[in-house]
């Protein structure tokens, strides 16, 4: 039967413009987010962004974690990147991963490989919707273990071997680019190819324990150029987590942006949920200044995401500040707020690694580097942290500490 109604008249719908412009205003729910499940870790990497080591006694329970997953499902957050610390040390890790995937939340988890034995690898190979990311910061044990601790390279490679043999496809190898490993980019790629994995390289930010080693570990200006050139020449099939958009200015005017949104997603499309339910703008910004709320005391995650004053501010148009006269502002957007904050630079000025060199001059001036009170490192002595400790055997880590001040992971056992 023919309808007597006219079909809806469609005037030209309003132009929406670029995805990036919509994202800068913030979405009603994150697209994906980082969820640090525990501050406990068997390693003590010198540059740990979350200053992990000791479990926090206030860590969320299994039921509290499931309630978060329920919220993420309702909000249609597409996936969570589960990390920590070392998330697999939690005895409910698999229960939570399964709960997430059963509730339409995809999972990628970030691990140093400690628990990826053949049995676990087989389980992973058989499951849908779970991705694995193995952390590695050197293509050789010499370079890697200097940052991550003795035996950590071997442990990561064993995990990659187990995954590959079990038929797990497309694991990720995640590398933080440093002064010491930037010459190994080709070797990293070869390692990924060898195990059927995808290489992911990301930016070293001066966050967490890295605040102490950033000056020595971050790539030099020449090395940043080297990295940019490598990405342009060999970066197809290499993920970057969009963390190198500050390098886009190397591409010259009108071109040369790296693939990705070239946008800071913090508080707009992504954020961090930490092991005690605190919500931060991003995992590189674990500090009061970037604290958006707590899921237990502020009415749950959705409420924090929507109503946080910090997030409201981040979703407003950001002023270019001192960068407004720079021709490359459009590409780099002033860089990374965590990088600026933890080097003591002003938020409305250049990124410390500004490729035009404006950050370098700022670094040479007077600055106060902030410390975060959120520190779960096993050693309190900052001088000792520049050398990674030997890994702690896992059997010591399954029991939560009786008190916060239990430095010794053996306490209570």
């Amino acid at each position: 039967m023919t309808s007597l109604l006219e079909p809806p008249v469609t005037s030209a719908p309003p132009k929406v413009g670029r995805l990036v412009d919509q994202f800068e205003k913030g979405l009603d729910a994150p697209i994906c987010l980082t969820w640090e499940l525990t501050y406990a870790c068997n390693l003590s990497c010198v540059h740990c962004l979350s200053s992990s080591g000791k479990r926090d006694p206030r860590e969320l329970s299994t039921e509290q974690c499931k309630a978060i997953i329920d919220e993420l499902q309702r909000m249609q957050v597409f996936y969570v990147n589960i990390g920590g610390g070392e998330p697999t040390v939690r005895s409910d890790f698999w229960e939570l991963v399964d709960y997430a995937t059963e509730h339409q939340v995809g999972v990628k988890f970030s691990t140093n490989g400690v628990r990826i034995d053949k049995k676990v690898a087989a389980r992973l190979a058989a499951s849908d919707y779970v991705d694995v990311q193995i952390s590695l910061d050197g293509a050789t044990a010499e370079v890697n273990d200097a940052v991550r601790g003795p035996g950590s390279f071997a442990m990561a490679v064993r995990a990659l071997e187990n995954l590959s043999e079990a038929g797990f496809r497309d694991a990720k190898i995640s590398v933080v680019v440093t002064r010491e490993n930037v010459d190994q980019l080709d070797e990293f790629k070869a390692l990924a190819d060898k195990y059927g994995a995808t290489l992911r390289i990301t930016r070293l930010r001066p966050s967490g324990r890295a605040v102490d080693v950033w000056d020595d570990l971050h790539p030099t200006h020449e090395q940043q150029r080297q990295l940019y050139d490598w990405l342009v020449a060999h970066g197809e099939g290499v993920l970057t987590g969009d963390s190198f958009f500050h390098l886009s200015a190397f591409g010259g005017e009108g071109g040369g942006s790296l693939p990705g949104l070239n946008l800071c997603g913090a508080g707009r499309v992504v954020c961090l949920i930490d092991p005690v339910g605190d919500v931060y703008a991003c995992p590189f910004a674990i500090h009061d200044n970037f604290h958006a709320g707590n899921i237990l005391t502020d009415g749950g995650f959705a409420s924090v995401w929507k109503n946080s004053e910090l997030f409201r501010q981040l979703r407003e148009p950001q002023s270019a500040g001192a960068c407004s006269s720079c021709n490359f502002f459009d590409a780099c957007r002033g860089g990374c707020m965590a990088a600026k904050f933890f080097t003591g630079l002003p938020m409305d000025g250049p990124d410390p690694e500004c490729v035009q060199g404006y950050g370098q001059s700022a670094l040479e001036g007077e600055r106060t580097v902030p410390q975060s009170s959120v520190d779960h490192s096993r050693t309190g002595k900052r001088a000792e942290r520049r050398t990674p400790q030997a890994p702690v055997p896992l059997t010591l880590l399954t029991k939560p500490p009786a008190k916060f001040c239990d430095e010794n992971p053996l306490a209570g056992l």
Partner: protein
Amino acid sequence: MTAPGATAVATAQFDPGATWRLHPQVALRPEPFGALLYHFGTRKLSFLKNTVIVAVVRSLGEHDSVRDALRAHGIDENAERPYLHALRTLADSHMIVPA
């Protein structure tokens, strides 16, 4: 992860006269400006930029052909080019598949 499935099948030629549907592994999340599509198998994210294309995509399986779906949403021959281009892009990414 097991094989995503979508990539095991060669991309079907996009025929607007045929019946198509949203891939079962795709989540569609409405937004004020349109919608986000996330494919759990390929892990690709697509952004639909107006509410009309969103309505068309959601209704694809209910119409005998893509063209029928477009007409039902007021998109006539003069207006269909950008919509067909968008749908072809979605087909190439396996966000929509032959029904």
